[in-house]
């Protein structure tokens, strides 16, 4: 058997072969990383739902929770605003219900309610309202049925409002959509775009370590005197000038 000799040529071969096999992904990482660094973080946004306005609850004659018509054990209760109307949010084993805190009537998050909530986050006119039975790729971090409100603004923003609680979930715009495409290229999760811990990416990332590792090593072997001749020439002429 031939003994492996750890010469620069050997590392150059690794560099080339790993480059041949994983080079495309390295290119895609460089490209998507460059694009994500270029896209304005503020415009991409969408990381928190806390940007929505928090109005103080009006002091009022709220129905006592004990008087609410209930159909089973309650696991949680909150008094909050739905757009401008105070509501009780009741959590039970069967799901979440909203009840008007003043009249005691059940509240459904219909299109009008969704529009009212969305208007509090974005004042642009609403082009379209759609009820989604399941989260789409833009609202993938959230669960349950939800309303999607599309705004007529420069970003083509879409607000996502939970159809169960009427809470504002997230805002997505065109900059985010572009960013998300490159994020998908970066995390290699082409279906869900969420996980960056799947076996494919771990494998490719491990392989790429060899590409960058050997490349870094070869830097020390690839520069010769000829490469820096121009530097020495310039210095020499600078010395001459100084002496002259």
């Amino acid at each position, binding site marked *: 058997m031939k003994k492996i000799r750890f010469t620069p040529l050997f590392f150059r071969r690794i560099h*080339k072969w790993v*480059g*041949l096999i994983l*080079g495309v992904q*390295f*290119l895609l*990482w*460089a*490209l998507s*990383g*460059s694009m*994500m*660094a*270029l*896209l*304005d*973080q503020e415009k991409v946004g969408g990381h928190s739902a806390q940007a929505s306005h*928090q*109005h*103080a*609850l*009006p*002091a*009022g*004659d*709220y129905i*006592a*929770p*004990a008087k*609410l018509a*209930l159909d089973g*054990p*309650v*696991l*949680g*209760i*909150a*008094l*909050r*605003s739905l757009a401008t109307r105070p509501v009780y949010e009741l959590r039970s084993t069967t799901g979440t219900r909203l009840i008007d805190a003043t009249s005691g009537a059940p509240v459904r998050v219909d299109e009008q309610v969704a529009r009212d909530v969305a208007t509090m986050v974005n004042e642009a006119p609403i082009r379209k309202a759609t009820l989604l039975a399941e989260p789409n790729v833009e609202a993938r971090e959230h669960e349950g049925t939800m309303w999607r409100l599309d705004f007529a603004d420069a970003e083509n923003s879409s607000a996502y409002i939970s159809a169960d609680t009427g809470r504002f979930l997230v805002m997505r715009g065109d900059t985010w959509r572009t960013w998300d495409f490159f994020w998908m290229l970066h995390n290699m999760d082409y279906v869900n775009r969420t*996980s*960056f*811990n799947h076996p494919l*990416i*771990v494998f490719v*990332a*491990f392989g*790429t*370590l060899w*590409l*960058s*590792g050997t*490349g*870094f090593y070869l*830097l020390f072997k*690839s*520069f010769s005197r000829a*490469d820096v001749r121009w530097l020495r020439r310039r210095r020499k002429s600078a010395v001459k000038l100084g002496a002259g």
Partner: protein
Amino acid sequence: MAIRWPLVIRRTHKWLALIVGVQVLLWTLTGFYMVAVHIDIIHGDDLVRPPVVAPIDLASFVPPARIVQSAPDASEIRLQRFMDQPVWRAQTPGGPRLFDAGSGQPIPDLSEAQIRAAARRIYSGTGDIVAARLLTTAPLEMQARKPPYWQVEFDAWNRPTLYLSPQTGELISRRHALWRVFDFAWMLHIMDYDDRSDVNNPLLRVATWSALAMALAGAWLLLWSFPRRRKKKA
């Protein structure tokens, strides 16, 4: 004289690599760490116990209308548990405030003993508390979160640290050694050495596009070199 493209591109590849080589090495190393250790572990999901869910008896509590009178700037009043005791939690611009759900009386800020007990209940591990401190300046690992909060450190190999609200004893954040390594890796990855959060900084933009140019030059060399290897040797 005709331009010798292979030479020009080889030189481009070499010189760009000389400039961004260290950073490319750091990108692949930090990237590998971030993909290899699962994000749920980084988030410390296993450090805390899931919250107890139990039916509540609405009739035994003062109605939230009373809490709205006590905390007129509250935007939301929620029932929750505070050390087994039901409380109304009012979300106000100045932070959350707790009220005894039975009497409607405000609950004062927690004492150190209460914070320690609350942290013990949240923490899923078995180690003891090493230190509990009320912080008024934010440590780096709390990023943009505004103090004050309690920092409770536990005794374990990964130095788990819980951050609790002084008003409600709720968990604000959890940190541990692997998270801290991840955060450091993230800093190196996005090249924002101050706040570790600005992914649009000029240094990163220059480095990423240079790396892309280096990679493209490398790809060109690769396609050029494989079929012609024999010829070149001759």
